[in-house]
Structures are given as structure tokens and as C-alpha cells.
């Protein structure tokens, strides 16, 4: 067993890729937020004390000038395609692990370029060039992809471009890392928690346990983690390589040159591949997405996922990849529409099966809903399909926002979609009941007093005269039967560019129609209607 070593692998890791993908100003503080939690932060934001995992509001408190960007996996993947394709000149076997991280086996390229060190240097230089030289790129080389990824992260901590772990020393390199670092490669949060409480704090302590015991106590996930901690690949080589006839192909007629139409084909094909593998009791851990264009160009990219890819995850990756190709820059963009799409399962393992939750779990969302969403995303565009998420805020429109459905996982519980998820007080919030119509863009209205003069609100929030008539856009004036206000709102006073001072009113007209109005700099706006 001691003869087994991990495949020598090079990993390119772009720290905080979701930030880079949103293409910010290099020195600007930016955070990327998913479900109200920070998933990535730029250097400037980090130096202001923002950490991954913070709530959005806490991050904004630490760094008020921070720009908040919603997480969008498709954007991440789209922006990463030029990076991946910049390495096609070095090796054909580039595998994208997730947007921001890619890996390839170094055996051939390393010999050609004269050793791991010069290869790592060259790769860092090429990738950095593909990114325009503005962003840090970290490269790690080690036995096994997990070791290489940790080496790249070590390079980041040391401020070096690359770290090369000499052959045979992967286990020693991994030994001092905390067991929590396993979460970078495998999804074993519960096991890691147990190990930490058992006093197994480093990978060395885990690797020193007899594998049989780990297997007996923690089952399959434990063995996987144990192999990684020992500097081996996740699975022995024997567990891989499917028969070639498992590939699925679809001819697209007419050829597809729009992402939305390609996405529909991707979903169909992914379902087909998943069903075919499932029938053989297999699950796919690495898939090659291959597209042929009308002009005969062949584009291919490999995607890997250490947990087996579900049909939805597979479809996502195919969609991201097509998006990356079809909307890419001139150099990588195909010259014609895609007329054939092929999915080749590069690596399959025996499906261990996933136990469906009895209450909810994976049954939270119906397969039928999934299909309809994917289809309409294709038809109407990914941005056209959204889900509501609850945020802090004062006006009714701010308190529920629309998040692209591509950025959330419908199969998971989404606490951010529940009204109780925001517990912080917001002084000046418009009280319940909320208006059933909230205008996306407030529309100008006119409010006059009994003499027909426009009603104004002074700097000390005094109303010039009681409102007597209300004129909605394009309608006749109506008498005001009741009104309440003004409720002053002074928002973002620390930011001269976004500072707003408004006063809100609730106004009920004679027919009983109630509106939420706001007056700002002498102009009245209708923000919402209680209909």
C-alpha cells in the first residue's frame, strides 16, 4: 500500500474568484453575497475586517463603502473560461474543479517545460496574463489534487506565486494542516466536526489512524477523507474509467448560437446522461463537455466534482461552459453556431445512492418544477427567472428583493426567503400591513392643499398645509380623505453620492384607495399602493 502515491497534479487557484468575476475596480472594496452571507471579499474589503461567512449587514458595518454584488455561479464560470482556455497550449487535460480552480496532471507538461518549478512559474505567468495581470494567481504542485490545492493556498499566505511540494512529500506537507481544510475537497462537515471534538485537529492525526478503523466508524466519507489526509487521490486508479459508449450526443438543428437555447439542450442532455449512468448504477465525477460548430471547430472542457454530479449540477456545468464559449472574447469564441453537443463521462464511480429525505430534503422541489424553470430560463434568459429573498430595509420594496434563480439552490431550505430571517430592527421602517403593489420605479404625483398650492415639507419635517387633493399620473385630482405622516427617512448620510432624505406619507383618497407617497426635494412620488 505504501507504493501508492497520488497523481502528480498542478492546481491553479484564483483567490476570491466570485469577486474577480464581477469585474470590480482593483482597489475597490467588494463583497459577493449569497443568501445574505458573504461568500467572497476583495482584498480591500478584507483589510477593512470583512470575513467570509459574515452577514451582509455586519460586513457593511465594518466597511460602509463596500459594494455588494449578488452571487451568480454562471457569471463565475463564464469569466473563468478564458483562464482555462489560456492553458490549452500547455496540456489538453485541463479540468475545471469549480469556477476559480482548475487542475491538470503534470506528468507530460512538466517534462516538456523542464520540471515542476518552471512549469508552475510558466502557468502562473500565463494565467496572470489571461487575467490582465491585475489579480493574484496562485499555483500549487503536489502528489494529489488536494495537496496541490493546499499548496496553492499556502502560496497565497506566503505571498508567493507558487509552491511546489517535492514528490513523495505530500503527506508531510499536509500533516500540519487542520482537518477543516478537508472541506475544500470533500463534503464531510459532520465528520470534521466529530474529529475536532475527538481531538483530531490536524490531518496528521487523522492519517495516523488505521484506515480499517476509520472505515468501520465513519464509512465511505471517512475513508475518502483519510485517503486525502494521507496524500493519496480520492479514489484508487482502479475505480475509474468508464466504457466509451456511455457518452450522449445531440445534434442541434438549427445550430445554436444563443446561450438561452443552448441551455435547454444542456438540460436535456444532462438528464439523458444521468439516466443512462443511473441505469448502470454509476455516478459521474468528471465530465467532458464537447461542442462542435458548423465550421468543424471542436471545443472541449472537462469538469470535475468530487461528490458525484447530480442531473441538475451536471446541467448547470454544461450551461456555464456553453455560456463561457458563446459569450467569450474574440480569441476563444467559436466562429459559428454549435451544431453538436456531446457529454462524455470521463470518470465514473459506483453510485452509492443518496437517501432521499422523508420530510422534504431532496423532495422539496418537484422534478417538474425544475424542468419548467430550466426551460423558461433558456427561453426568457437566466435573469428573467427570480425568487424572492428577504432583506433588511425601510421601504416595502427594499425588504424583499428578487434574486436570480440560478444563484440559489431550490432543493435546499432557504431561510433567506422567510420573513423571520431578518431580526435586526430597522428604525423608520414602514409598518405593516405592506402595500400589495410596489412600483419598481416610483411615479411622480401632485399633492396640493385646500388652496391648490403644492404641499411642501420643511427641513424640520413640518408640513406646509394639510394635503387636500392628490393627482396621480394621467388622472383627475381626487380629494384626500385621510392622511398620516410625514415620516422622515435620512438614509446613507455618510455617503454623499447615495445620501437620500425623504419624508413618507400614507394618503387615503375619497374612494378608499390608499397610497404610500414620498416627498424628496420638493417632488412627490407614489412608491406603492395598498390595493
Amino acid at each position: 500500500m505504501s507504493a501508492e502515491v497520488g497523481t502528480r497534479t498542478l492546481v491553479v487557484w484564483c483567490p476570491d474568484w466570485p469577486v474577480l468575476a464581477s469585474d470590480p475596480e482593483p482597489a475597490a472594496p467588494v463583497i459577493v453575497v449569497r443568501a445574505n452571507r458573504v461568500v467572497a471579499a476583495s482584498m480591500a474589503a478584507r483589510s477593512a475586517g470583512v470575513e467570509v461567512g459574515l452577514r451582509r449587514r455586519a460586513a457593511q458595518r465594518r466597511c460602509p463603502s463596500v459594494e455588494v454584488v449578488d452571487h451568480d455561479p454562471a457569471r463565475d464560470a463564464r469569466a473563468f473560461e478564458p483562464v482555462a482556455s489560456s492553458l490549452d497550449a500547455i496540456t489538453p487535460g485541463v479540468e475545471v474543479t469549480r469556477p476559480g480552480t482548475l487542475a491538470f496532471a503534470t506528468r507530460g507538461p512538466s517534462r516538456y517545460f523542464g520540471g515542476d518549478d518552471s512549469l508552475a512559474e510558466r502557468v502562473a505567468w500565463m494565467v496572470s496574463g489571461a487575467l490582465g495581470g491585475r489579480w493574484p494567481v496562485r499555483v500549487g504542485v503536489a502528489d494529489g489534487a488536494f495537496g496541490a490545492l493546499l499548496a496553492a493556498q499556502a502560496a497565497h499566505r506566503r505571498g508567493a506565486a507558487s509552491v511546489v511540494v517535492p514528490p513523495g512529500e505530500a503527506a508531510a506537507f499536509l500533516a500540519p494542516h487542520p482537518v477543516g481544510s478537508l472541506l475544500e475537497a470533500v463534503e464531510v462537515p459532520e465528520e470534521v466536526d466529530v474529529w475536532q471534538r475527538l481531538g483530531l485537529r490536524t490531518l496528521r492525526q487523522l492519517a495516523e489512524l488505521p484506515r480499517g478503523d476509520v472505515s468501520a466508524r465513519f464509512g465511505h466519507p471517512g475513508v475518502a477523507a483519510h485517503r486525502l489526509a494521507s496524500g493519496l487521490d480520492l479514489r484508487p486508479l482502479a475505480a475509474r474509467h468508464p466504457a466509451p459508449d456511455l457518452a450522449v450526443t445531440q445534434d442541434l438543428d438549427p445550430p445554436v448560437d444563443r446561450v438561452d437555447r443552448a441551455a435547454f439542450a444542456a438540460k436535456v442532455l444532462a438528464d439523458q446522461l444521468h439516466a443512462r449512468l443511473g441505469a448502470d448504477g454509476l455516478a459521474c465525477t468528471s465530465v467532458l463537455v464537447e461542442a462542435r460548430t458548423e465550421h468543424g471547430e471542436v471545443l472541449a472542457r472537462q469538469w470535475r466534482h468530487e461528490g458525484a454530479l447530480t442531473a441538475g449540477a451536471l446541467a448547470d456545468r454544461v450551461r456555464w461552459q456553453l455560456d463561457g464559449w458563446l459569450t467569450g472574447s474574440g480569441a476563444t469564441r467559436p466562429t459559428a453556431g454549435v451544431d453538436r453537443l456531446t457529454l462524455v463521462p470521463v470518470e465514473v464511480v459506483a453510485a452509492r445512492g443518496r437517501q432521499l429525505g422523508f420530510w422534504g430534503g431532496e423532495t422539496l422541489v418537484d422534478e417538474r418544477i425544475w424542468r419548467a424553470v430550466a426551460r423558461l430560463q433558456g427561453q426568457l434568459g437566466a435573469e428573467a427567472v427570480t425568487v424572492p429573498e428577504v432583506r433588511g430595509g425601510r421601504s416595502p420594496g427594499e425588504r424583499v428583493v428578487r434574486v436570480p434563480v440560478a444563484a440559489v439552490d431550490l432543493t435546499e431550505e432557504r431561510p433567506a426567503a422567510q420573513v423571520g430571517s431578518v431580526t435586526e430592527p430597522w428604525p423608520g421602517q414602514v409598518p405593516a400591513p405592506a402595500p400589495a403593489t410596489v412600483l419598481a420605479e416610483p411615479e411622480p404625483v401632485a399633492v396640493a392643499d385646500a388652496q391648490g398650492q403644492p404641499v411642501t415639507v420643511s427641513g424640520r419635517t413640518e408640513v406646509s398645509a394639510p394635503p387636500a387633493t392628490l393627482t396621480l399620473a394621467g388622472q383627475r385630482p381626487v380629494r384626500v380623505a385621510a392622511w398620516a405622516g410625514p415620516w422622515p427617512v435620512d438614509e446613507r448620510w455618510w455617503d454623499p453620492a447615495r445620501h437620500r432624505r425623504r419624508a413618507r406619507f400614507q394618503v387615503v383618497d375619497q374612494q378608499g384607495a390608499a397610497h404610500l407617497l414620498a416627498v424628496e426635494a420638493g417632488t412627490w412620488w407614489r412608491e406603492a399602493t395598498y390595493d
Partner: protein
Amino acid sequence: MAVPAPDLVALRELGERVRPLSAAAERVLPVPPAFAGLIPQGGLVRGSTVVTSGSAASSLALALAGPATAAGSWCAVVGVAHLGLLAAAELGVALERTLLFADPGPQEWAGTVAALLDAVEVVLVQPTGSISPTTQRRLVARARDRGSVLLQAGGRPEVWAAQPDLAVASGASRWEGVGIGHGRLRARRVAVQVSGRRGAVRPREAELWLPGPDGQVALAAPARPVGGADDLAAGRTTERTADRRMLDAPAWRDAG
């Protein structure tokens, strides 16, 4: 000799309890209890079209959709960009089972709605252009086949070629809690009239709290038929015949 007046509420409850269990839950999506006396079938009949209108159209539509989503159904909103989602949550709509679709435009509107009727139980729309008889028939057939409900929130009811199965109209709203320069909107009383084909031919009306001072939808004045007395037996008969007719004939055929 004095005969005690029958306790109508208790009798009605008893009637609910001894109803055959089979059909109720399968054919009908739940609505707030306040609507139970207004809608003859006691809920939104699967495969039907419902249109709300008047001064409380959006709130009515959200209140009608709420209990179904709370019970685990999904709701899709097509093209109602100005829908108040916070109000939706307050009226009982489960936001975690709500999908929002941008306006697909007149060309793709019918296709989008049809695809969603196939997938989710409640599709909330506000069509702007008119809907041809063919399209309406297709959508209703799709809704019936899958057992979903097409719910129009406000807008113009006349865009539909044939009359919708259920029309929920609201009269003037009366807001409470707000005065001249003081207070705030707290509660609203609104007269609601339900009419339509199939069992709801006789319009019924009631006054609802939408919402009440406690934020709940409740009855402010009990439901009664418009312009006439009603007794329990008559109500039951209408309901029975309605159910039978619904099973026999497709909806669009008796539209004429």
C-alpha cells in the same frame, strides 16, 4: 311551544365533517377560512380560472393564493413586476415556494403560462393583451389536466375571451387607523362579491377584513347571497349540482 333556532354554524361545520373525504382535497386548493362561505366549492377548484378585481384586487389574489402555498404548493408569478412581495408574505404566501418570471412579452406569454400550469399549482398573472378563445381553451385544458389554478390579480377581466370560472370583485375599501395627519393604516374593511359560472352563478357577498387589525384575513360581516335570503339546504343543493356538472362537462363548453 318554542323551537330552538338551529345553530347554523355548528350545522355547517357538521356538514363539512360528514362530506365525502375523497374529492375535497383533490379538487380544491385551500383558501383562507374567511372565503369559505363565499366560494361555493370552499376553495379554488383545480383547473379553473379566477379573476380578482376592484380596489383590493392584488390583496385578494395574494390572500387566495396564500394557504395553498403554505400547504406545500408552489406559486409562479408571471410578469407582475409591481407585485408587493412583502404583502404577499403577510397575506400568507410562502415566499420560499414562489417563483417570479419577468414579463415574457405578448408572443411568449401563453407558452410561458402553459409551461408553468404544467409545473406549479398556482399561476398568478396580469395579462395586458387580450386572450383569444383558442389560447384560453388551451390554458384551461392544461390547467385541468395538471390540476392547477390560473389566478389573475387585478388588471382587466375582459381580456379573457370567455368568462372566468370565478370572479372575485371588491368594492370600496374603508381604512381604519388613519386620521387627518395622525395614525397609520392598520386595517381595511372591504366588501367582496363572488360570482361566476358553475355553482357560483348566484353572486354572494361579504365584508372582509383584508387585513384585520391583527394582520389576518377575517370576515367582518357574514356572507350572504346578493339580494335574497339563503338557507343551508339551498346552499348545499347548489353545491352538489355544481360538483356533478363540473365532472360531466368541460368548463369551456358550457361557456357558450
